[in-house]
């Protein structure tokens, strides 16, 4: 099939390939002037941003698909396909827009680093892969770019690979992601085996077709036989279509668990902060970790097949991650780690929203979160640079006067993250809380959990702001801190705009075009949107704001002008556990060492001593012994031969005469 490219398809292809071209040029001809590499990367993503804006406003809401035949063998047909629908167009804007700011910021942040061009090449490679996930129109292509995102994250976390901690963190991130990908690819294989396609549109129509038949999970019953083979049984619970659909949903969710760092695969994200701060902002806050949530929204129809219980599981995993990460954030002292745990927690919110049958509020929160979390990370980077690479908030203090521009933007970001009206975060978080109260899928425990986590969020973010920015300087570096250059602060200012405004411009209404939703929100103009949450569900908005007030009051009482953290004295062992991340890393290390490492040791021992030793050397040894024994016989002496010959004759005669005779 020859691809027919519409102008929109051309634009999408250009957006995708520009960063790749920048990366390839940077790698293939490393030019002497690293600034030029940076400019090429920035230019590529800037052009992409402009084209994305064009697509967003002028391409219409109809889904446009472009297919190039990439692989077609038997019934496995994979196209290199681009899908432009409201979902991917919004995500394009997020990735290129936030990405552009971070590219510009990086130019200042990494100025003078000896691997400047390698940095920008990797950043462009990442942008390419991320855009690939966004534009992919089938599961296989998504997996391809999924892996590429994983590897670019590996390269960027390990950017300063001379540091042992950075090299270890990179490896850990890649391997943890691979555990998720293991489930993801199995889920893709099962989906393909059941429904016969990997293309989203075809899968959706297959699911819908199944929906019109009596048995709604019809296609998935094909999986019953092979799965029965695995478990050597034909138990009803394995063959039951609901179980099969749920299983496939959960396997696909495993991919999101890895990329979006959901419990129990959350351990890599805090360590990933070893990378340069703009990388943390782009990859580990705004875009890559959001890929999991994006993927869940993309395949929502597969998770939502009637009979599937995958969404309930997803909701609880998300809620639990949100709570766990918020608790861990309470006792961190590294400014980037606090933000990393808050990212985990917010991703938990998004995943929970998907689980609560509300993918559009997940995407809404993803969008606003991308803006304000990138802002917070870049602000943290500005602080870190000003304090000469000091990351401990207890060695900062008083920065509000020294760094005015960083201060007010960081404060805006914090307000948005806490969910203060009228900042963007309020609206998206409110949408999630409201989803928990939605009568169709009401989940009161998760609503309470969401409100509680909102309070925790305000508490730890207020702690961060009060300790790092207010009060007096606690170290030499902090007292000499001064504002960062314009190349770094202007992106902060630009990002502050969506941080304030993105909540009420009608993103949720736009998303409703692409995603299923029971009560599609309407765009009623900016001013009306500002008050819509209170009209829609006053309970969610009220409790959300209450939690913010409570969290802030508590933090202010504890941390105003505090010299040290008073919380460990008050909470005791709980505080220590929170600081030590509830010992998950240690637990995993122990688990891996008793399972995989032991298996490897056993296999190695078996290989060395049984197969190569006992069997192979044994065979060789026996053969050789046999040969040596036979060699003794061949003496070359005629007398011996004659003697042996005679002895043989005697033996045969004796056998014949003595042993055979009693038979008579």
């Amino acid at each position, binding site marked *: 099939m020859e691809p027919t490219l519409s102008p929109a398809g051309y634009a999408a292809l250009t957006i995708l390939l520009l960063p790749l071209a920048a990366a390839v040029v940077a790698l293939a001809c490393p030019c002497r002037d690293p600034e030029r590499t940076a400019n090429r990367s920035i230019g590529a993503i800037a052009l992409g941003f402009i084209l994305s804006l064009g697509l967003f406003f002028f391409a219409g809401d109809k889904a446009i698909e472009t297919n190039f*035949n*990439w*692989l*077609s*063998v*038997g019934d*496995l047909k994979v196209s290199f396909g681009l899908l432009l629908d409201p979902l991917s167009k919004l995500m394009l804007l997020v990735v290129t827009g936030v990405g552009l700011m971070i590219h510009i910021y990086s130019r200042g942040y990494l100025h003078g680093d000896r691997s400047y061009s390698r940095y920008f090449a990797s950043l462009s490679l990442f942008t390419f892969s991320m855009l690939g996930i966004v534009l992919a129109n089938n599961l*296989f292509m998504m*997996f*391809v*770019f999924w*892996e*590429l995102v994983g*590897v670019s994250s590996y390269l960027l976390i*390990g950017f300063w*690979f*001379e*540091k*042992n901690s950075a*090299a*270890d963190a*990179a*490896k850990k991130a*890649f*391997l943890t992601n*691979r*555990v998720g*990908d*293991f489930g993801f*690819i*199995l889920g893709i*294989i*099962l989906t*393909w*085996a059941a429904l*016969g396609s990997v293309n989203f549109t075809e899968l959706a129509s297959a699911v819908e077709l199944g929906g019109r*038949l009596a*048995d709604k999970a*019809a*296609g998935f*019953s*094909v999986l019953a*036989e*092979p*799965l029965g*083979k*695995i478990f050597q049984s034909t138990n009803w619970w394995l063959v039951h279509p609901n179980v099969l659909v749920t299983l496939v949903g959960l396997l696909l969710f495993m991919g999101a668990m890895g990329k979006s760092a959901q419990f129990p695969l959350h351990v890599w994200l805090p360590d990933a902060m070893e990378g340069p701060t703009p990388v943390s902002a782009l990859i580990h806050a705004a875009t890559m970790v959001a890929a999991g949530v994006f993927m869940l929204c993309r395949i929502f129809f597969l998770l939502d097949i009637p009979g599937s219980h995958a969404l309930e599981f997803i909701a609880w995993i998300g809620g639990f991650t949100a709570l766990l990460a918020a608790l861990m954030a309470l006792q961190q002292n590294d400014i980037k780690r606090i933000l990393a745990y808050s990212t985990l927690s917010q991703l938990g919110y998004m995943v929970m929203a998907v689980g609560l049958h509300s993918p559009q509020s997940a995407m809404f929160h993803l969008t606003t979160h991308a803006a304000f979390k990138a802002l917070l990370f870049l602000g943290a980077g500005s602080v870190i640079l000003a304090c000469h690479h000091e990351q401990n908030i207890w060695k900062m203090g008083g920065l509000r006067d020294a760094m005015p521009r960083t201060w007010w933007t960081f404060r805006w970001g914090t307000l948005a993250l806490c969910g203060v009206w009228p900042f963007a975060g309020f609206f998206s978080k409110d949408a999630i809380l409201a989803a928990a109260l939605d009568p169709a899928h009401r989940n009161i425990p998760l609503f309470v959990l969401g409100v509680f986590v909102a309070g925790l969020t305000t508490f730890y973010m207020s702690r961060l702001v009060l300790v790092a920015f207010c009060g007096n300087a606690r170290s030499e570096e902090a007292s000499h801190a001064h504002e960062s250059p314009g190349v770094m602060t202007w992106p902060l200012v630009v990002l502050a705009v969506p941080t304030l405004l993105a909540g009420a411009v009608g993103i949720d209404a736009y998303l409703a075009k692409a995603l299923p939703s029971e009560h599609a929100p309407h765009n009623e103009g900016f001013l009306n949107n500002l008050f819509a949450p209170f009209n829609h569900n006053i309970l969610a908005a009220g409790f959300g704001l209450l939690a913010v007030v409570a969290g802030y009051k508590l933090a202010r009482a504890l941390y105003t002008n505090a010299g040290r953290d008073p919380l460990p004295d008050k909470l005791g062992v709980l505080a220590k556990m929170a600081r030590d991340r509830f010992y998950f890393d240690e637990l995993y290390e122990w688990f891996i060492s008793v399972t*995989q*490492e032991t*298996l*490897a*040791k056993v*296999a*190695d021992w078996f*290989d060395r001593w049984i*197969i*190569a030793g006992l*069997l*192979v050397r044994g065979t*060789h040894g026996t053969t050789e012994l046999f040969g040596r024994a036979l060699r003794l016989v061949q003496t070359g002496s005629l007398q011996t031969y004659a003697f042996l010959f005679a002895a043989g004759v005697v033996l045969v005669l004796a056998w014949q005469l003595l042993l055979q005779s009693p038979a008579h």
Partner: protein
Amino acid sequence: MSLLSSIFLLPLVAALVVLCIPRNYKFVIRLVTLGATLASMLLALALFAKYNAAPVENGFKFVEKHAWVNVSALKLDIGWHLGVDGINLGLIVMGAIVAFAAACVSREITRLEKEYYTLLLVMTGGILGAFASLNLFFFYFFHELALVPTFIMIGVWGHGENRNYATFKITIYLSLGALIALAGLIALYIQSGANTFDIVELTKAVKARPLPLAAQSLIFPLLLFGFGILVSLWPFHTWAPLGYGAAPTATAMLHAGVLKKFGLYGLLRVGIPLMPDGATAWLEILAFLCLGNIVYCGLVAMRQKDLNLLIGNSSVAHMGFIFLGIASLSIVGVTGAVVVMVAHGFLAALTFGLSGALREKTGTLEMEKLGGLLRQIPFLGAALVMAMLAGCGLPGFANFVGEAMVLFGSWRAFPLVTTLATWGALIIGAVYMLRAVRNILHGPEKSEWAALKDASAWAKVPFVLLLAALLLLGVWPRLLTDKIQPSVAAILTMANTKTADKAARPGDVKKAADEAKQRAVQPR
């Protein structure tokens, strides 16, 4: 000489030329070798470009056929018969490229160059000849022609104190494997009753009159395990890491990359299409044995401290995917297996080439002694990172395409094995590959390696070539798959033809009934 035969006769002629050059003219010897392998590579690429997937009689193109020995009294018919289809086309091109790369990295050899280059050229010609031959006699003869130089090269130019034991072990193992396979081939010749070694004629004869089931179930295991030993099928694999660890770089590249694929090719070309009924029972066992390769050898690789042993074990592990794809007997799986055969050839050559370059520069491959090298040797380091990532199945490299196809294709036939193989592919592979990168390239710079120099421009050529091949096929897999698919389909048609006495077995009747029932239940 026509295109196909000149690809492998050129290196053999060059070997004769090298023999005539005085041993002091080292530069000329090297030039002749490089020229011959380069020319053969270019010819192979031309062959690839000219090949189209349009169907022809018997499925083979570029056919060359001459009578050679035909003694009717002895019922002996050995003819010169060459040809390519989608399956051996990729292997020949890959082999020719790897051979050129191997000739390039042979600069490390500093003694007895004349003998070395002669053997290298003979090995190259033998490998390519074996893949091009459509007559079992030459098929086997050319393989032996390539195998014998392997042993000599490891023994004479090998590395490490284990060299002699390694030579000894690899010789015995591979000779044994080849002998078992030979027994199988001779039995096949006799049982078919067609009095010909010609694969095309044999195929026709078997199509007309299938071999009796008893003969099939005796001959197929001979071929399976004979060829299996040559491919380091678990548990007959221990020669491979040891042998490759001791071999000179070029020999390891050529053997692990190209010659090892001979067994797989033989299985696919001869074993499965000619003895489909013998195969069905044994392929189930093969599927479980290949877990020994993928999972077990992967775990063993995790424990290695020497880079070459790690690569050797990982190369054994990758063979498992090919076996799994073949065992699945599905078009997706077998096509994927052929893609992995080609991709792994490039990858094995790349990794052994890089480890050779590393050993030449540092004198050691103990990973604990190395560390922080990426800053000193950015090119070799980056190439090694790419090779390692390709080895753990990163999209963009050809290995991913092949392995993914194998996993997709074998799910229906062997769900449990596929699940475990996915674990091996995604997690175990990544663990040891990244561990190697972490220990060798990452980490603080060490003072003893401060003076290390990166590869010179000429030394980069083979690595760039191999990486480019991996990337090209990874980004544009249809370049290969469109050519492979029709040939695989032809083989699978034969493999899935049920003979009369098979259907008569009670177990199969029951299975067929079950399948019919299953189909009735399925809505689609």
